[in-house]
C-alpha cells in the first residue's frame, strides 16, 4: 500500500502524560474508502489516538497525517474534510436540533445550509425532531443528531468513537446501514472505535488491536478470527485484551501448517 492509497497514516506515534504512556509508538495506515476498527479495552489508547488524528491533542513523538496533511500542524487544511462523533462531547442543549445543525453548517462553510440540513435530517430520521431542543431528546435521538452533525459537511474522513453505544438494536442497525450507504456513495474513509464486535465484523475491512497504548495485532476481521482459531471477533477481542492471545495465534498458525 502506497501513502497515496492511505487516507490516514500513523508512524511511531506516541503520547505521554508525564510518566504515563497513553500511546506507545504505534504505526498503521487506513486505506482510502475503507472502514477500519480501532479496538482495545478501556484505556488502550483508542480515544487518545483519535484525538491526535483530529488535531485536538499534540503527540509527544511520531507523525500522523490525514489526507496527506500532517496533524496537528496543518489541521486547518484538512478539518473541513473531516468530522467525528464522540461520547465525550455534546451539543448545546437549549438550541433546537435545526439551530445546532445550522451552527455547524456555518462552521463547515456550507452553501445552501437549509437544503443540506433537510437532507441529513431525512437520512438520520430527524425530520420530526428539528424544532425540538436538543436537551429534550432521548439518548438514542441525541446520538442520531450527533451522527447528522458528523456527516453534515460530507466528510472524506469520519472518525467515530462509539457511534452506536446508546442506541437500541433497531436504531443501531439503521445507523450502521446509513453509514454503509454513506460510505458507498461518497467513498468516505472511516476509523471506528467500538466495543460492539458485531458492528466491527459487519462494517470493517480492517481491524487494529490496541493494548496498553501499543498495536498488538492488525488485519481483516476474518483473518484475525482465523489466526486466533476463534469463531467471532468477540472471542478474538477477549484473547487479545486479556493477554496471551499472541500465543494462541501462534498455536493456531502451527496447527494450520501441520494439517
Amino acid at each position, binding site marked *: 500500500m502506497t501513502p497515496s492509497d492511505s487516507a490516514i497514516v500513523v508512524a511511531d506515534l506516541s503520547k505521554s502524560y508525564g510518566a504515563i504512556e497513553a500511546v506507545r509508538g504505534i504505526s498503521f495506515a487506513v486505506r482510502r474508502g475503507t472502514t477500519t476498527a480501532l479496538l482495545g479495552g478501556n484505556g488502550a489508547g483508542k480515544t487518545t489516538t483519535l484525538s491526535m488524528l483530529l488535531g485536538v491533542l499534540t503527540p509527544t513523538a511520531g507523525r500522523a497525517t490525514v489526507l496527506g496533511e500532517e496533524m496537528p500542524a496543518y489541521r486547518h487544511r484538512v478539518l473541513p474534510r473531516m468530522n467525528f462523533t464522540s461520547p465525550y462531547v455534546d*451539543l*448545546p442543549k437549549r*438550541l433546537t436540533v435545526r439551530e445546532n445543525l445550522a451552527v455547524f453548517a*456555518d462552521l463547515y462553510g456550507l452553501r445552501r445550509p437549509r437544503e443540506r440540513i433537510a437532507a*441529513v435530517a431525512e437520512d438520520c430520521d430527524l425530520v420530526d425532531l428539528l424544532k425540538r431542543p436538543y436537551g429534550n431528546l432521548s439518548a438514542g435521538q441525541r446520538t442520531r443528531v450527533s451522527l447528522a452533525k458528523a456527516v453534515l459537511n460530507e466528510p472524506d474522513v469520519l472518525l467515530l468513537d462509539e457511534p452506536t453505544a446508546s442506541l437500541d438494536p433497531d436504531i443501531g442497525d439503521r445507523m450502521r446501514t446509513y453509514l454503509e450507504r*454513506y460510505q458507498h456513495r461518497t467513498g468516505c474513509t472511516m476509523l471506528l472505535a467500538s466495543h460492539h464486535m458485531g458492528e466491527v465484523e459487519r462494517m470493517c475491512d480492517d481491524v487494529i488491536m490496541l493494548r496498553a497504548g501499543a498495536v498488538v495485532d492488525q488485519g481483516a476481521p476474518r483473518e484475525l478470527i482465523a489466526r486466533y482459531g476463534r469463531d467471532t471477533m468477540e472471542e478474538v477481542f477477549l484473547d487479545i485484551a486479556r493477554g496471551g492471545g499472541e500465543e494462541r495465534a501462534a498455536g493456531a498458525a502451527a496447527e494450520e501448517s501441520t494439517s
Partner: protein
Amino acid sequence: MKGTAPLERHTGAAASVRRVRAVLRRHGYLILKSWTRIVSMMYYPTVTMIVWAFLTLYLAPTNNFLKDAPGFFIGAVLLWDVLFRGQLGVSLTFIEELYARNLGNLFVSPLTLPEYIAGQLSMSVLRALIGVGGACLFAFLLFRFSIFSLGLPLIAFFANLLVFGWAIGLAMSGVILRLGLGAEEFAWAAIFVLAPVSGVYYPIAVLPSWLQAIAWGTPSAHVFEGMRGVLLRGTFGWDHFWVAAGLNLGYLVLGASAFAWAMRHARDHGTLLQMGE
C-alpha cells in the same frame, strides 16, 4: 439517501466570516429567544443605576458638585457596566461551551482560535448593548438622564472600556481553560478587583500615592478621569484617551496570549474533548 449532489462550500475569507457567524449564531440563539436571559442582563445595571440616581437626588440639593453635574454617578455606573459586561460577555461565551461540553465539537471543526475570539468579542458587544442599553433607557425614562449628554467622548469611553473588558475576559477564559470550571468564579469576580483603582466614583488623586501608581496602569482609571473632565469641566482629555488606548492594546495582546497559551496547554494535555461540567 438525499444530498447526492456534491456539496458546495465557502472557502477563504468567506468561510472565515461564516465561522465567526457560527459562534454568534450559537450564542445569539441562546440569548435572543430567552427573555429571562435578556432581563437578567439588564437587571443588575438598572438596579445599580437606580440606587445611585436616588443618592444623587438626595445629595444634590446640598452639594454644589452634584448640582453642576447631576448625571455624574449615573454616568459612572453605566460606564462601569460597559467594562463589566464587556468582560463577562467574553468569559460567559466561553463558559457556555464548557457547560454544553461543546468545546470538542468546535475545535475539531475548521474554526480557528482567532475566529473563535472574534466571535467572543462580537458576543461581548451584543451583551454590553443589551445590558447597558436597558439601563440607559431606564435612566432616561426615570431620571431624564441621557448617556448621550456626554457627547462624542462617549464613543471613546465606551470603546476603551469595552476593549479593556475584552482583555480581562480573554485572560479569564484562559484561566478557566487551564484550571477547569472550578475557576468559573474568577470570571464573575475578576473585574471588581479593578473597581477601587479605576476611580469610578472618585478622582484617582484621593488614593494613596502607591495605589495611584497602580491605578494609572489601568485604562479604566484614564476613562473615568476623562469622564469627570467632560462632566465637570466640559473638556475631553486626549492625553487620557491615548494612554488608555495604548494600555488597552498591551492588555489585549496579553489577554489573547494567555488564552492561546491555555489552548496549547489543553492540546498538550488532552482536555479539549473532556472539559465540561
